[in-house]
């Protein structure tokens, strides 16, 4: 039986190769043939229009492509029975297909335009039974069930998953020089007991064959490349855009990861490149990339639409005999209309990740209001004003506000640093107001702390900063709190998980990964309430003094939904709320940390911007994609040096990607910190790092100031552990991460060092 099948299959494949020589040319689903002879192929069975290309994608299933749209720039060809399509650039003649074209019959997933993930909660087991179904196997292989309709500039395809009891409609259309694919949220119907958890849209559109050379780009952290000829066995990378949803109670945390900050992905295969941007519903998206293998049919990168999430909680936690995990599926989300991914083929010469970044930047400028700014590079001093720690007086415990750096001391540190040659300085002042580094309550009033010198000292610091050209950002956290107050009630205003339990944010023990009970539990404020209070705060902040900027830390780095029964909020709505908060500080310079896309386009400064990609086994190398996108448009600052895995490496990363460096500063380290929850504030006393900082700064100063507002136009890795960045000023920076010296284009660069030259080849550093 199986032998027979195999023979038939082999014969079919052979037949395919024989009939369609075009298939054997490309392994990546890309064809350069401008126009096939239409007359030879007859007319389409669906509409009678001329067919330009015929492909047998599976034993007996022949796809006939006919012209369905032409907008002057692109042409779209589709099969009106099955819904497969490709689009073609009219000038260059380049084509891109919705599915890879020469995969064997056994890889049925790779013949699908949609893969649906679902769970069956009727099956009793320890975890919900999860499975996937692909559109080819369910709707096309045995009987063609899909309905294709023509819409403006494209087609709409309805996939009925009869056995599973659900149905959904996707639209594929050309728009300008892009192809827009979308899942219509309203079209998703569930008639049976199965519940859809996610939909992969065009999972194998950005794919490549085993023989192709190139890479997939994923926006993990600063960006990472996965080689198409990966030496890894099958593995899949998935990561949610804007990080994990915080509306869950998480019991353990083991590893650190770099969240996805940008809703974008891409592939470069041989000389072709395709860029995908999630243009709608990105808050509900996951980036998926995989290497071909058993479960993953082909090497491909795509976007996944998260329709529902499953959360779990432990019931009877302290009762070992009856302890059990229960699961809850959140209700389907109705806030977004469509989940949309826009694909663009990149023009010749821009088919690398720099070209992708350039195209993505253009999207941000056109659609998201990103604008060019005149920026100044500056050493960033991240001052911690105060912290609240558990203390006791004669045995009576209380929360004590421990001042670490007063306003006058901050001024003193700044002036000492300026004295040691750090002439361009920026201050990020955390813990300067009511409750220190971590909010006890959500602040509604910008009120200086008496213990740090009060209003007068703060004003004198602001004046000092103004006089000395120091930009000062005062940090406030509008979303996290430990206890109620200021019109916030913990029970009603903290976000909840899908069991209706307050979603508690914890710190975890680094040794055994469990929740650290000694750290106060932090809650997150519901987005609606956060907007209200932030507006009040903004009004109060503007009265404080006009010339200080505001830093809205968490708004740029986390995103959450809320499953509270009263006001269910999706991540999309939270994003809108955060945008409102950011826009609420209209006349004030705004800084954020982390730098999720929507926050980064609104901010003047991004702190803790990603410079690493998060070490997934599939990654071959990290690339400063994030910085290529934003350099010259937003000022970017790395993590502080105290948090570096290796300080020299972090410094070189900053040099490579044109970020500013930062140090966390306190005036003095009281020994009380050692055994407090802030025991990670080690070596922040400014005397520990003053000299080191001045040394780094003086090495970097010339390059940084020359390119502060410049745009990165080129980036490559000319040799192992060596990178080269080119700015539109003509400046070229080569960084050597090796522990030995290297020679690139006749220039010798020392171990763990860099070289920079101006547009005329003159050495800068």
């Amino acid at each position, binding site marked *: 039986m199986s032998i027979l099948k195999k023979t038939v299959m082999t014969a079919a494949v052979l037949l395919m190769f024989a009939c369609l020589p075009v298939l054997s040319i490309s392994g990546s689903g890309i064809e350069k043939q401008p126009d096939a002879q239409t007359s030879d192929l007859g007319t389409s069975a669906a509409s009678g229009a001329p067919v330009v290309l015929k492909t047998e994608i599976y034993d007996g299933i022949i796809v006939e492509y006919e012209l369905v749209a032409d907008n002057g720039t692109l042409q779209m060809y589709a099969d009106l029975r099955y819904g497969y399509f490709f689009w073609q650039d009219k000038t260059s003649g380049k084509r891109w297909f919705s599915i890879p074209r020469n995969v064997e019959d056994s890889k049925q997933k790779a013949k699908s335009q949609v893969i649906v993930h679902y769970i069956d909660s009727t099956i009793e087991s320890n975890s919900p039974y999860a499975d996937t179904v692909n559109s080819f196997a369910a709707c096309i292989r045995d009987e063609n069930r899909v309905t294709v309709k023509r819409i403006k500039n494209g087609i709409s395809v309805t996939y009925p998953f009869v056995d599973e009891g659900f149905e959904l409609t996707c639209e594929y259309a050309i728009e300008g020089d892009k192809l827009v694919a979308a899942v219509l949220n309203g079209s998703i119907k569930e008639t049976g007991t199965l519940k859809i958890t996610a939909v992969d849209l065009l999972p194998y559109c950005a794919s490549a064959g085993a023989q192709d050379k190139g890479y997939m780009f994923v926006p993990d952290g600063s960006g990472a490349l996965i*080689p198409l000829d990966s*030496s890894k066995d099958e593995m899949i990378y998935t990561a949610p855009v804007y990080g994990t949803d915080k509306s869950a109670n998480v*019991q353990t945390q083991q590893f650190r990861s770099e969240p996805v900050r940008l809703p974008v992905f891409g592939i470069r295969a041989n000389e072709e490149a395709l860029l995908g941007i999630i243009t709608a519903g990105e808050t509900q998206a996951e980036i998926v990339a995989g290497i071909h293998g058993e479960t993953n049919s082909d090497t491909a990168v795509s976007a996944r639409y998260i329709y529902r999430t499953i959360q779990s909680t432990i019931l009877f936690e302290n009762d070992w005999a009856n302890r059990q995990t229960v699961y*809850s599926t959140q209700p389907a989300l109705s806030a977004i209309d469509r989940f949309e991914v826009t694909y663009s083929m990149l023009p010749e010469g821009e088919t690398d990740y720099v070209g992708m970044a350039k195209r993505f930047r253009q999207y941000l400028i056109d659609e998201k209001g990103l604008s060019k700014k005149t920026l100044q590079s500056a050493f960033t001093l991240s001052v911690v004003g105060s912290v609240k720690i558990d203390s006791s007086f004669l045995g009576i415990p209380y929360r004590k506000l421990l001042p670490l750096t007063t306003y006058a001391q901050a001024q003193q540190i700044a002036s000492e640093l300026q004295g040691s040659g750090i002439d361009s300085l920026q201050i990020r002042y955390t813990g300067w107001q009511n409750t220190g580094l971590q909010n006890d309550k959500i602040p509604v009033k910008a009120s200086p702390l008496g213990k740090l010198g009060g209003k007068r000292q703060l004003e004198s610091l602001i004046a000092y900063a103004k006089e000395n050209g120091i930009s000062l950002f005062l940090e406030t956290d509008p979303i996290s709190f430990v206890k109620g107050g200021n019109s916030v009630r913990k029970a009603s205003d903290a976000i909840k998980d899908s069991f209706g339990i307050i979603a508690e944010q914890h710190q975890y023990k680094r040794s055994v990964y469990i929740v650290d009970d000694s750290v106060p539990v932090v809650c997150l404020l519901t987005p609606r309430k956060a907007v209200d209070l932030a507006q009040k705060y903004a009004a109060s902040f503007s009265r404080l003094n006009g010339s200080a900027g505001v830093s809205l830390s968490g708004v740029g780095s986390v995103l959450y939904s809320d499953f509270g029964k009263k006001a269910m909020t999706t991540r999309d709505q939270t994003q809108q709320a955060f945008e409102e908060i950011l826009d609420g500080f209209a006349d004030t310079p705004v800084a954020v940390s982390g730098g999720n896309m929507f926050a980064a386009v609104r901010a003047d400064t991004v702190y803790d911007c990603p410079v690493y990609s998060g*070490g997934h086994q599939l*990654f*071959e190398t990290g690339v400063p994609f994030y910085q290529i996108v934003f350099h010259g448009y937003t000022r970017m600052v790395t993590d502080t040096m105290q948090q570096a895995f290796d300080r020299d490496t972090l410094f070189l990363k900053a040099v490579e990607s044109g970020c500013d460096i930062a140090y966390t500063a306190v005036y003095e380290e009281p020994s009380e910190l050692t055994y407090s929850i802030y025991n*990670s504030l080690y070596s922040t006393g400014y005397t520990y790092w003053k000299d080191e900082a001045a040394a780094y700064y003086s090495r970097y100063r010339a390059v940084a100031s020359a390119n502060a507002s410049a745009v990165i136009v080129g980036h490559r890795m000319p040799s192992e552990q060596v990178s080269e960045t080119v700015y539109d000023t003509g400046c070229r920076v080569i960084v050597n991460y090796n522990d030995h010296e290297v020679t690139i284009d006749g220039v010798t660069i020392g171990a763990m060092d860099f070289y920079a030259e101006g547009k005329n080849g003159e050495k800068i550093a």
Partner: protein
Amino acid sequence: MKYKLLIALCIVTGLLGISVRAESTEFVPYYGYEYNSYDESVPVPEGYIPEKVYSYREWGLETPLQTPTDFCYDDQGSLYVLDAGNSRVIVLDAELKLKKTIDSFVFEGEVLTFSEAGGIFAAGDRIYIADTSGCRVLISDLSGNVQSIITRPDSVLLSENFEFKAQKVLVDSANNIYVVAEGSTEGILVFDAQYQFQRFYGTNTVTRTAEVIKSFFLRKFLTKEQIRRSTRYTPAPVANFDIGKDGMVYTVTNADQSKGLNFRGLNYKGNNIVSAENRQYYGDTEWDRLIRNSVNTRLVDVTVDSDGVFYLLDAARGRVFCYTEEGWLVSVFGGLDGSLKGTFVSPAAVETIGEKVLVLDDQAATITSFTPNVYARTVKQAMLEYAKGNYEESFTLWQKVLDQNSFNEWAHLGIAKVYEEQGNYSEAMHHYRLGVAQGSYSNAMRSLREEYVNDHFLMIVLCIAGAIALIAVSVTLIRKRLRRFVAENGYSAMEKPALFPFYSLAHPIDAFEQFRSHGKARYTAGIVVLAFWLVAYVIRFFGTAFHFNGSRAVDFNLFSALAGTIGLFMVFVVANWAVTTLMDGKGTFKSIFCVSAYGMIPYCVSLLCTTALSYVLTRQDAVFLEIVLYVGLAWSAVVVFVGLMTIHQYTVGKTIAALLITVIGIVIIFFIMILLSGLFSQIVSFAQSVYEEISIRL
């Protein structure tokens, strides 16, 4: 064969040429931590950075590695990887580039397979393979010609059902072969250079825990059948070992924490000479309360580098613990995950090449290399210098450590040591305090005190003389006034209500007699004394000088302070009252309360005195503190005893009897309290679970 290799190499270099950059990472997925003096994990900068992940394709091999269980670096530039599943050995150079593969091992014309081999060792021009399921050790040359095979020795020392399932093997400089065999609780088998079995070596001892002792006695009463069925306490078998430059054999054992000593360093005789003073248990000391059968450290491999620093591989959490010979923790890194570089699916072996640490993963079939960053390198170097006694050299290193982690206790210790040697005692004390070294702090304080006394001798003598004179004068004056008061009023001024508790200390019989005769017992006075006790307790907790104070401010617990003072006191009073009511005691509850409370005054005062004295005394003079405390305690005991005897109108014997029964009463009260609190907490947790289930399921 060679031709094939060449092609493979070409492919590899070709691949490298095309790819943008060879696979490397600077990202560290695991969080850096270490344990402080209080056995708590604290955040520190990450020390070791995952550098590269190697798999068969990097070496240009066609067949993937299959369960590579072990590897061994011969210190001559060759790393031998035992690719057990394919019965081959892969030889890499120090840069982890492929040197060659030994695809077949031939013995007398026959190709041998060892698909479940567990260990490899390379020395001189010999490769030793522990073929576990084959119950043998293969000894081969470098091209796969097996010279000799060691099988199960025929020795009376071996028990009958002992199978020679060789798991790990190593060879010392005298060509003695050490073999760890599966389930060999007798220890490591040693063969001489002629492959003859010599002896067992380094048997683990059974640690005498309460359970072991219980079972020892129980066995005396059990039937043979019962004994057979009960668990036998046999020593934990050695899991893996390595040999150091000095010929020391380091072994790791899968013992859990309660058994202690999961790492040992054995001398030639097989005696453990790794000091247990600094560390009993290697690995994680914090527990994961989320897991029922708590997974703690499970050491599976050990390797020693040329500095004598050893690296222990924990398979439970996929971590490498790096310690100096003294048991000082240098760094912890790694994790169990598999999808992130620097973590593993199933870590099987650890090895070092220079300062690089390599971990072999037998399921992912990869080798991950880690390099120390500046922080780990400096800490390690500083510890080594410090251990050698080169304090001056370590000083600058420790300062560099502080620049990156100012909370590092070792750094403060090292710096304090130098300050002490320089005679800068107050600075030394400051750093000893940050380094949590009470003994050294005390020593530095003694030097400081000596210095101070020498400098200010005259002044101190004058001060003491002055103080004595002052006390003498005031005592005389007070006495004079008291005498005058007695003369005028007919009773002592001390007998006034406010001073009565103090009067009772000097004249307990008379004073407590007055409880009955004049109704002098006062609840207020008693309560004031109790409050004073609590305050004295708290002051002692927070106020005692560092070198006598093992507790930190954060450890204070108001509940236990209350329970340890007033709570205990009340239980005693209630128990005594209950007992003496039955034993014809004449004392009322009030009088018992007051007697016991007044009696505590000397003890409370002694608490304050010891707190104050702790600032001038060192740990060598600790006996003075104890004397003060015991004097206070004894005085209190006498007062309470005499007081109770007086108010109850007991004889001495009956008082003693009553007190003994009171103790029993206290025990009963505790028992009831525990019972009640257990019951109560069960009710609470039941209500909680019902609420939880209702709110989640509905």
